[in-house]
């Protein structure tokens, strides 16, 4: 566990200056107040900030940043702290910026099909608001009922609908960003086409708060699909399920959702949700298709056939309520797995879709080899799996084996042409081995960008770029 941040980074004078900007009710440096912003959803990371500040508008953000830049005080922008890469853990102390006041939907533009929001808006609230107008914002990370748009943009989050509709990146059209020097810039616009200069919008998407602070975003919307169907395919053979995934896509069908859950995951999810999920099968695929009625009918029929060819039994959800229960159950998978053991180590390995069966097989073999329990679920259609290990940090011996197993899983993913993280980001957790994926030159190029935009290194330091390459994959010592 990393514990830091007790140092006095903020002098009394600076504190008074900051309070001048936001008012004392929005500046908290009490111990309890700082402690509750010392963590995110990543296990084994905790570190106290020196203060927590809640700005009310862009101007206040800019003023805070200027002061921090002048005094070299780290800034950690934070949404709801649900990221899984220690992205908001203030590993070097400093100020945590929260957006509880900046959480308004500013405009839903029905003519240009865009929505403009402040960073603190909760993803699900946004989705609901636009759906009321017959519009659709597809990116739906499992954490959407609490995650914020600011967090989604900075992690470039994916979701259950990613296969057909893409990830957050594909919907960000324009941003307002406060740079590390306190300047405010606007990137992009409500334009279908725009090639004036570098694509800064894309640069900031997925930047994990290391380049600037997003204070406003304009997102693309699409018309709400007419209908939707939901199906569950049940398998007695794990790899057959994984094979079906590749086959469906090879058959030129792109379903909205193609999610995979193995038996141990099904068991815990059912234990929590109690909706009658099958727990006597080895794996299920949760499959959805949306669009015009005829297309949905046709695709679902074909998908069912493909699954049956792989010896699956299929069940179609009879109502929207039933379909929704299935989706909600899937979304609870990670947290539900946490009930098994005190520590839950989750990974985010991603491979090309065609390799998903090989990856599933490898994960199981590796788990057996090291005698560790690994439950697997994930966005199979995206080739994005979450092998998850319920364990206990206090069990040193087991933790060693977990470490080895995950190291091997990573190596395998890269060997299959994959990546170390598909959607959870690098943060502090994966910083030490980003180089595996990018190579030395890749890292150098990224550092050059960082250096140019944040020369003093105040924006979320300790994330993405490691101070030194650390050998360990999941276990910090």
């Amino acid at each position, binding site marked *: 566990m990393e514990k830091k941040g007790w140092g006095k980074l903020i002098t009394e004078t600076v504190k008074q200056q900051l309070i001048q900007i936001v008012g004392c009710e929005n500046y908290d440096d009490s111990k309890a107040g700082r*402690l*509750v912003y010392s963590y995110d959803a990543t296990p084994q990371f905790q570190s106290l900030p020196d203060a927590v500040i809640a700005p009310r508008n862009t101007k206040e953000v800019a003023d805070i940043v200027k002061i921090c830049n002048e005094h070299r005080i780290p800034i950690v922008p934070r949404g709801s702290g649900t990221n899984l890469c220690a992205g908001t853990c203030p590993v070097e102390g400093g100020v945590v910026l929260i957006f509880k006041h900046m959480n308004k939907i500013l405009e839903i533009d029905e003519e240009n099909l865009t929505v403009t929001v402040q960073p603190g808006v909760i993803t699900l609230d946004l989705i609901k608001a636009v759906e009321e107008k017959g519009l659709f914002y597809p990116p739906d990370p499992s954490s959407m009922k609490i995650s914020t748009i600011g967090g989604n943009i900075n992690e470039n989050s994916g979701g259950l609908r990613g296969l057909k509709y893409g990830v957050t990146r594909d919907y960000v059209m324009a941003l307002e960003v406060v740079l590390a020097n306190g300047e405010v810039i606007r990137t992009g616009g409500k334009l279908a086409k725009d090639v004036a200069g570098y694509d800064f919008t894309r640069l900031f998407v997925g930047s994990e708060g290391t380049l600037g602070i997003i204070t406003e975003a304009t997102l693309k919307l699409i018309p709400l699909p007419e209908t939707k169907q939901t199906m569950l395919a049940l398998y007695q053979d794990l790899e057959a399920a994984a094979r079906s995934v590749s086959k469906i896509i090879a058959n030129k069908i792109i379903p909205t959702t193609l999610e995979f859950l193995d038996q141990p995951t099904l068991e815990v999810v059912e234990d929590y949700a109690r909706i009658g999920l099958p727990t006597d099968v080895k794996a299920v695929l949760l499959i959805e298709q949306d669009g015009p009625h005829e297309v949905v009918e046709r695709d679902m029929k074909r998908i069912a056939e493909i699954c049956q060819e792989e010896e699956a039994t299929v069940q179609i959800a009879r109502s929207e309520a039933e379909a929704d229960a299935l989706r909600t159950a899937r979304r609870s*998978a990670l947290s*539900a797995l946490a*009930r098994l053991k005190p520590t839950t180590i989750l990974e985010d390995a991603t491979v090309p879709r065609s390799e998903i069966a090989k990856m599933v097989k490898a994960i199981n073999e590796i788990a057996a080899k090291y005698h560790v329990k690994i439950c697997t679920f994930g966005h199979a259609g995206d080739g994005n799996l979450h092998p998850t290990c319920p364990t206990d940090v206090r069990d040193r011996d087991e933790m060693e084996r977990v470490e080895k197993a995950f190291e091997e899983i990573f190596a395998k993913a890269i060997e299959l042409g994959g990546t170390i993280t598909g959607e959870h980001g690098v943060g502090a957790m994966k910083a030490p081995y980003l180089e595996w994926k990018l190579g030395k030159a890749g890292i150098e190029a990224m550092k050059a960008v960082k250096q140019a935009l944040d020369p003093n290194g105040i924006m979320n330091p300790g994330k993405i770029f490691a101070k030194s390459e650390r050998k360990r994959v999941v276990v910090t010592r």
Partner: protein
Amino acid sequence: MITAKERAAIQQQFQANMNEDELMNCMRCGFCLPTCPTYIESGLQESHSPRGRIALMKAVVDGLIEPDEDVERSLNMCLGCRACEPVCPSGVRYGHLLEEARDIIAQNKRYPFLVRIIRKIVFNGLFPRQDRLRLLTSLIGFYQRSGLRTLVQRLGLLKLLPRHLAMMEHILPEVPTWKEMNDRPKQLTPHGIKKRRVAFFTGCLMDTMFMKTNDATMKLLQLAGCEVVIPSNQVCCGALHGHGGEKKQAKELAKRNIEAFEQLDVDYIITNAGGCGAFLVEYDHLLKDDDWAERAKAFARKIKDISEVLVELNFHQTKLKVKPQVVTYQDSCHLRNVMKVANAPRLLLQAIEGAEFREMKDADRCCGSAGIYNIVEPEMSMQILDYKMTQAKQTKATTIVTANPGCLLQMKLGIEREGLAGQVRAVHIVEFLLEAAVESGLLEEREKPMNESVRKTS
């Protein structure tokens, strides 16, 4: 104030007694945040959220921080409504963590003199003693009936109290007399064929201040075909003690109740107050490290809420009728989140002819009553209540139904605050059901089976 010495003692006991596995079980996903009333009403402060509170408790155990005023503040602000539990995919039993933490703080903290006296009177002198509660209730009765109340009101003495306390005086039910309270039934026979044999947990406040509700409950049980036994040696459930950091007392009361009920050979032990029921149903947890563990388990298994048993006995399929009115239902947090009863009351209400049931938004969110929370944390409590009333008004309901006395009083308070007295009423579900039974003729028919048959034959 917590002194340095108290802090050290609290910290040491946190380390010794808090369930570390349960604390570690929280994976900090934040899924519970949108359901926590204090997180929402505090303007999204993490320190007033379940995830934040768990992190604080864990940090005290880990020695990362001391249990200072801010930590205590965060725990005090919690309603204990346990809305964070059913939504937690990891299955963190937050309520148990909170109870343990509060117990440790209360046992190690020296409260100011006055608070100490009050705690002693309430926890030791009053609630374990049904006779004294009766006496107190009679005093209230005397106040209400003797003309003293009119005098107090006329003199404007209530204005001396904070606004919400003054209103509370107003909303207390018309309490029974000393004689009525001492003349309670011990056994009741079913109307018609006997379908179940049940015991009735009367509760301490329920059997004094809210005696009418208890009477209605027993009547409904009879109507539904239950033989009812009411052991007179039962005592207060201990919830107030358990939630107030007096766990030892709570355990004593639990044992007395287990003794009072375990020999009765009944199908169920029926409760009509979500707050009591939820505490009774967790006696197994309360006594888990005790010799009594097995007996506690057997007791807890039998606990059943009145709505559930009524639905089980198909009471909602009998003819029930009221005058046309719009009805909404406010969940009792503990009934819903701990006893997991949410459907049965709604089924019953929907079955009543003339009652148009309209679900209010966030009916499952706490009303801010939360035991004595509305007295100790009035500001937050009233803020939560105002939200609740806004939602209730949206439904245009003239009858707000609840399933717990605390919630009932809070809804009445809400009605007063909104100036809706006379237009909107709040009732306990059993009283509403009884009203429907009377209105539909069910009660008279059944109560006078002899007369009926005599009339028919003649």
